[in-house]
């Protein structure tokens, strides 16, 4: 079974530039999550989708971050414009019917200079 795929693995940009991350969840998983993990901290939920609908985006900085999952499968997370404090690893995860069992991708590491 293929795992959660994310790209790119690494990205370096300058502040005020834009960046996009892509995630393809495990086939058949209805729920998709984007987490932000800043160095030395635990993952923080940015947005949670159920199929193509948003379940929770309360911690998403909507003035600069956006995410979509148009066909209920893969998803894109965009940051525009980026700030220094956005430097982090962006983790995508998906889950099936088992409560709380999330499957994570390897993450996309963003460095903002």
């Amino acid at each position: 079974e293929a795992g959660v795929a994310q790209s790119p693995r690494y990205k370096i940009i300058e502040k005020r530039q834009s960046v996009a991350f892509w995630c393809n969840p495990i086939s058949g998983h209805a729920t998709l999550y984007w987490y932000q993990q800043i160095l030395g901290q635990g993952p923080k939920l940015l947005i949670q989708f159920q199929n193509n609908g948003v379940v929770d985006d309360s911690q998403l900085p909507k003035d600069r971050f956006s995410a979509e999952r148009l066909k209920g499968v893969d998803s894109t997370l965009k940051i525009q414009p980026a700030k220094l404090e956005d430097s982090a690893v962006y983790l995508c995860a998906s889950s099936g019917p088992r409560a709380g069992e999330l499957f994570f991708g390897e993450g996309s590491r963003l460095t903002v200079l």
Partner: protein
Amino acid sequence: AQSVTQLDSQVPVFEEAPVELRCNYSSSVSVYLFWYVQYPNQGLQLLLKYLSGSTLVKGINGFEAEFNKSQTSFHLRKPSVHISDTAEYFCAVDSGYSTLTFGKGTMLLVSP
């Protein structure tokens, strides 16, 4: 609102020694509790989970955890660690909406 506190940011231990990683949670409703492990440059992987039933749960790689409702704790234990257990461990809580809140993590450093 729910939250998770991992009391130790780093736990150094010698190989074959026992280890306990501490986790306390706060929630106003019944919770599900989880431990995830993150190896360097990898995503998180589920170690074990408590949903209901027996308060002692066993997971992969010889780890176990005990749910203590009165102390709002879910400490992770292993009787004998290996070098390969060196990783970051995250405790997480879910109040039933499949939305996990993670702690800040505990780095387990196993040395020979």
